[in-house]
């Protein structure tokens, strides 16, 4: 479904702020797989997601999605294949517009927009039904501005919007990180439910070990712009949060060792 070949991206090249965010990422996602991306801060996990979404064009590498080479597609064109939920609950919805109007926009994701009435009656009917299924009591408040809702409610609605038209790929970018624990639980289990029900190919970034272990069928661990571990199948199912923490410690130790070795070598020979 999604194929990434040799993705490389450096931000602010040649300056003191140079960040080598992606340093050669190769990855293939099978249709219907739910992949969790873990990583330390600055490991490039969000950059990876943004590269797939098309927020910037890559320095190097190719992206194939659903049989299309989307490497040079602008963000809004890729949106016909991709549904997204952002980390910031404010990013995924238009705060000044009503819940219904936000969904009217989502219902035309990647489709041409014409002069037909946005709040079509059949859309409203389906919307009321699906929003009622959230059990947040929002089905009677469809005319309220979305800006008046809590972060958790907005993320739940953003998820519903992103998956309203079945996306070929769902991108979840730490979409529970900004929520209180209770809302985070609600949103993550809702996500899991929708992903399983529709069999969505999903790439989810998180820094919660617990979420990584509990959800999805494959874990990618990223560090310094590379995929350093890829757990899947039985190995993924056996993983516990402690195992993941061990792996991270291991990476950190090896890195310190590398730096120590480099200093020693330079002391001796340079």
């Amino acid at each position, binding site marked *: 479904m999604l194929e990434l070949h040799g993705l490389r991206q450096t931000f602010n090249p040649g300056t003191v702020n140079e960040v080598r965010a992606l340093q050669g990422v190769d990855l293939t996602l099978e249709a219907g797989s739910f992949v969790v991306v873990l990583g330390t801060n600055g490991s490039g996990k969000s950059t990876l997601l943004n590269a797939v*979404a098309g927020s910037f064009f890559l320095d190097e590498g190719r992206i194939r999605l659903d049989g299309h080479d989307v490497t040079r597609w*602008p*963000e*809004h*064109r890729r*949106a*016909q294949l*991709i549904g*997204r939920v*952002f980390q910031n609950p*404010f*990013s*995924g*919805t*238009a*705060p*000044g*517009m009503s819940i219904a*109007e*936000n969904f*009217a*926009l*989502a219902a*035309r*994701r*990647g*489709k041409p*927009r*014409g*002069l*037909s*009435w*946005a*709040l079509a009656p059949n859309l409203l009917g389906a919307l009321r039904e699906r929003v009622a299924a959230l059990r947040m009591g929002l089905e009677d408040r469809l005319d309220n501005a979305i800006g008046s809702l809590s972060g958790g409610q907005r993320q739940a609605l953003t998820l519903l*919007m*992103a998956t309203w038209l079945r996306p070929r790929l769902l991108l979840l970018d730490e979409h529970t990180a900004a929520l209180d624990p209770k809302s985070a639980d609600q949103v993550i289990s809702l996500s899991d439910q929708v992903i399983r029900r529709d069999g969505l190919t999903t790439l989810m970034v998180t820094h919660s070990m617990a979420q990584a272990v509990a959800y999805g069928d494959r874990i990618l661990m990223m560090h310094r712009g590379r995929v350093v571990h890829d757990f899947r199948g039985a190995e993924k199912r056996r993983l516990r949060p402690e195992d993941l923490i061990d792996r991270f410690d291991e990476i950190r130790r090896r890195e310190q060792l590398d730096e120590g070795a480099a200093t020693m070598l330079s002391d001796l020979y340079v």
Partner: protein
Amino acid sequence: MNLLLGALTLGLILSLLAMGVYVSFRIFSIPDITTDGSITLGAAVAAVLLVGGTSPILATAAGALAGAAAGALAGIIHTRFRINALLAGILVMTALYSVNLHVMGRSNVPLLQATTFATQGERLGHTLFGTGPLHLLGWPVAPGDLAVLALALLAAVVVGVTLYVFFRTDVGTAMRATGDNPQMVRALGADVDRYTILGLALSNGLVAMSGALLAQYQGFADAQMGIGMIVWGLASVIIGEALTGSRSLGLALAGAVLGSVLFRLLVAVALRWGLNPNDLKLITALFVFSALVLPRFLARRRGVAPTARS
């Protein structure tokens, strides 16, 4: 009464300007100075066509289209060339000054002999009510003036309703969302740049239509007539928001119309009381400044008050 009638008519004609400014300033959060140039462009194009014998409706539409093109140009400069929206507007406004002079061929085109919406309105008034003064609530009113007022009202209502319907369609909803949250609009597959260009075209189209009608009402187009128009539009939008108090689309559009009318009434009264017309723009600018600053200032005062008491 004639003063009142004139202020109402002018307010309704300039309500198209106010709705245009509402689109750029409130929906897209862009204070678009192209307005100052496009209102003159609309007047100039319409005036030249009217002198040439074109029908008022066609001339007004042509003026509006010219303004829309100018707005689209500002939008293209802003989005495709990544130039600050304010600067893009300044560039187009400045360029339009020369363009307007070229369109008119001189700095002023009088419309004394031409058939305009105002002369047609007057003729309509005379055929409906005769030439003698009518008595409205005990005041003598010229039937021609009344008919022109009715036409201006018709224009404001038709444009307002069309705009409202447009902003509730798929395209219009996406346009409003573009101003609200561009990142979300991109993620939902709409081209933010395209909608911004379209929005500025729409805004300046309305502004230019207002200019075309204004030229016909006052009987001339002038190269200087656009100066400070953006601030008048802002003043109307702000007064409208104070009147309707709501950010909902329908009320906001109605507010822009009401704000424009009320603003012209206030201006007429102030001038009648002996305000020096030269000071009008200074006072309008001060008014808009205080309307923008006052809410923040009051909020800070409210925030401070409880701590001062404790």
